[in-house]
């Protein structure tokens, strides 16, 4: 019960923040109050989420009514617990970030912050929903409020397009989600999740599969599964940094929550093909996401595609879990659910951090384009360190949290042979190999994503004078600390999550997973094990050894400090460095069949090289999904609409005729 109380407090605080935003419009005090209340609400959510993890599913409460359609049905469920913790962390970090990022409270900012806080409430309601109607209402409100979030900046073509893509795909997804829920609700005669889950055997198998597929697609639109992801790169760059952070850090996770809800709570036992399909879509999403990320110069678009990649990893884990269950490996089922949820939390933390830092960079150096930045780590040391922690996390390098969660997922996938089916085992290994490819490309992509803007020499005047004075630092710094804590304290966190997973799946993982104090044994005792905590300690200790060797063995005597050997160059110029696109050129050449680059080359004349005047060279990856999937669908819809338009003639007499015909038909049908 206590978690719902905490959620209620959080909701109240966020409502107060929304009111403060509108009431305090055009005053700095209003901005600060709103941000403080927002952060406080986040803290309350974190505590509620942790309580849910530890305590298990609560009773369903229906404040304000009976089981009439339209009443609020709230339940703190273990599955939602980890998402609630993430929501809280993101809210706290963004709350701390808002004052310095938005600087002044203008009318637009006031509306934006009001919409943001209401979106927080809506997200929390999605997570705390215990019934179908509550869920759907909260979901749709969240989508509409996020649409307002994206539209914050002055109206321009890309902003309008980005917001529209978000809304349009959200609505299409919503239709599918409604259909999925409708099937289940009708067949089980109930609107409450717990009851549906208990009565699921009443639903025939093919309806169950249909519901699952509808849910996968519907929630896939929000989560960003390929090819339903196209709103992510359109919407993320145009929203303010904290809005993008909120979208990537939390909103896409709500899509993942929806998939997990259907896959693990409502429709757990299913045929193997469901799991394999999910796993395949996840692996494909991961690979496509990171490949597109490597072709992006805009930091926010790059991060958006990286989000797609990580969602792919999480969904692969869920799909593999479902496959294992279909083959009777219940422990692995629970374990991969645990690993996937852990990755949700980790990715939420470091992706939010990276988006917030992208916002800092944009304000400090004036551009989101990597090729206009450079050398920022020297000009903005704090931002450099914080962004580095986030980059280590997302590139899954030890000892940070990204490494631990991806390692757990890989360990789970490596158990594919335990299904005792050759085909399925091979498919799982192929999925693991795809994730391996993705991991390697992710490291490459984030060396680029951190190295080009932060290291090297500044490529433009603005980057050379960038300063982090008056830039927000507390929010991102908090997230960096959280990332490290999630890694070092992974065993502790996994204990809490194992309890949550036990509530969802009925499998107690603790004895297998954490036999020792701080060592994690994934999946099976005789396979592998390591301790994230000891690894961190070891890595820190290893750093001391060279220092000691140096102190003991260095030459005591005269030494000269000379410049770094640079090949005898007279002076370095920024244009000698790698640019974002040249650094990723090997990948773009190797995967040219995937990118299908469109190259345009124009010369002023055909004179030999050097005298032909300016040359214009442009290359762009073909937007495969937009061009070959969405445009045809859009054109088909428009064609259909044109076909149907004559019905809406505007003639009142025709409309009356329609009414008459409809009533006539209704009488005839009822009579028969």
């Amino acid at each position: 019960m206590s978690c719902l109380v905490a959620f209620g407090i959080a909701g109240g605080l966020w409502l107060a923040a929304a009111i403060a935003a509108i009431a305090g419009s055009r005053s700095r005090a209003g901005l600060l109050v709103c941000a403080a209340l927002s952060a406080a609400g986040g803290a309350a959510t974190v505590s509620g989420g942790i309580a849910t993890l530890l305590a298990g599913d609560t009773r369903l409460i229906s404040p304000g009514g009976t089981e009439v359609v339209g009443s609020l049905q709230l339940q703190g469920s273990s599955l939602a617990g980890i998402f609630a913790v993430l929501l809280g962390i993101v809210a706290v970090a963004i709350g701390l970030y808002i004052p310095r990022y938005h600087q002044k409270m203008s009318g637009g900012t006031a509306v934006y912050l009001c919409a943001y806080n209401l979106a927080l409430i809506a997200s929390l309601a999605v997570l705390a929903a215990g019934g179908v109607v509550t869920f759907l209402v909260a979901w749709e409100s969240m989508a509409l409020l996020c649409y307002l979030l994206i539209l914050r900046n002055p109206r321009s073509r890309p902003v309008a397009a980005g917001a529209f893509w978000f809304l349009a795909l959200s609505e299409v997804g919503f239709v599918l989600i409604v259909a999925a829920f409708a099937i289940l609700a009708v067949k089980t005669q109930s609107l409450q999740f717990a009851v549906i889950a208990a009565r699921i055997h009443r639903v025939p198998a093919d309806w169950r599969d249909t519901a699952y597929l509808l849910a996968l697609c519907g929630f896939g639109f929000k989560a960003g599964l390929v090819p339903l992801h196209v709103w992510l790169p359109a919407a993320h760059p145009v929203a303010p940094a904290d809005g993008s952070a909120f979208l990537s850090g939390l909103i896409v996770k709500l899509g993942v929550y929806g998939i997990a809800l259907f896959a693990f709570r409502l429709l757990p036992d299913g045929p193997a093909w469901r799991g394999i399909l999910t796993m395949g879509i996840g692996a494909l999403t991961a690979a496509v996401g990171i490949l597109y990320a490597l072709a992006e110069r805009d930091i926010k678009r790059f991060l958006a595609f990286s989000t797609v990649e990580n969602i792919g990893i999480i969904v692969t884990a869920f799909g593999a879990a479902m496959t294992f269950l279909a083959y009777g490996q219940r422990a692995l089922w629970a374990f991969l659910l645990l690993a996937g949820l852990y990755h949700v939390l980790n990715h939420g933390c470091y992706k939010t951090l990276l988006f917030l830092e992208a916002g800092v960079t944009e304000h400090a150096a004036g551009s989101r384009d990597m090729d206009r930045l450079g050398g920022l780590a020297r000009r903005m040391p704090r931002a450099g360190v914080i962004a580095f922690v986030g980059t280590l996390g997302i590139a899954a390098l030890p000892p940070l949290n990204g490494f631990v969660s991806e390692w757990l997922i890989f360990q789970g996938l490596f158990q594919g042979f335990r299904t005792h089916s050759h085909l399925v085992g091979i498919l799982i290994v192929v999925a693991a190999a795809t994730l391996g490819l993705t991991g390697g490309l992710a490291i490459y992509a984030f060396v680029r994503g951190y190295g080009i803007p932060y290291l090297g020499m500044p490529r433009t005047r603005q980057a050379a004078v960038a300063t982090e004075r008056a830039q927000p630092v507390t929010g991102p710094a908090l997230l960096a600390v959280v990332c490290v804590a999630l890694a070092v304290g992974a065993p502790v966190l996994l204990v809490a999550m194992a309890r949550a997973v036990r509530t969802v799946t009925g499998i107690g993982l603790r004895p297998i997973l954490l036999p020792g104090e701080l060592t994690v044994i994934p999946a099976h005792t005789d396979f592998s094990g390591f301790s994230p905590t000891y690894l961190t300690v070891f890595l820190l200790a290893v750093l001391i050894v060279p220092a000691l060797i140096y102190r003991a063995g260095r030459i005591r005597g005269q030494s000269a400090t000379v410049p770094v050997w640079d090949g005898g160059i007279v002076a370095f110029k920024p244009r000698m460095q790698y640019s974002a696109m040249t650094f990723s050129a090997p990948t773009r050449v190797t995967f040219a069949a995937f990118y299908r680059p469109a190259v345009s080359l124009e010369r002023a004349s055909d004179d030999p090289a050097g005298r032909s005047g300016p040359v214009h060279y442009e290359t762009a990856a073909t937007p495969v999904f937009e061009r070959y999937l969405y445009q045809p669908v859009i054109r088909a819809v428009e064609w259909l609409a044109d076909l149907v338009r004559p019905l809406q003639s505007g003639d009142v007499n025709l409309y009356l005729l329609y009414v008459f015909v409809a009533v006539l038909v209704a009488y005839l049908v009822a009579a028969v």
Partner: protein
Amino acid sequence: MTASDATQAGAADEIAASATALNRRVAALFGRSLHIRTLDTGSCAACEQEIRLLAAPHYDLQRLGFFFTPAPRHADLLLVTGPMLRAFALAARKTYQAMPEPKLVVATGACALGGVYQPDAFSYGSVDQVLPVDVWIPGCPPSPLALLHGLMVAVDRLAAGVGSMSFSAGGE
């Protein structure tokens, strides 16, 4: 000679003796394995052709313990050719600075020793205007045998005999 002079002379002898001992040790080390970095300060590349031949099977400097390296950080000896163009002086100094102690500089070819080109607006005329040279190898270009001899002189494995050559025929 006064007592203090004697002491000073004695101290100077000691320093000279320990310097020679140090040189011997360095030479012994270098004699076993010496890494050479070549530096072209503006030559016609004839010297470079001869230097390249050192690595060929006919002369094979590796049998004597010499090796070429492109990185000055790994080099013990800097083999310099060319008349030290002014435009190159910065790069030459940077290369020399990048080499760790102990290090040697060998100037080779008539250009590097001050011949062919006189100091003018474009060149210093000789390498020792910019770098401290330890061994000079004359020639235009010096044959690989002369280069081998010069390298052995640099590491004290052969004695430099040109001082006692008089270059006048019919008299010694």
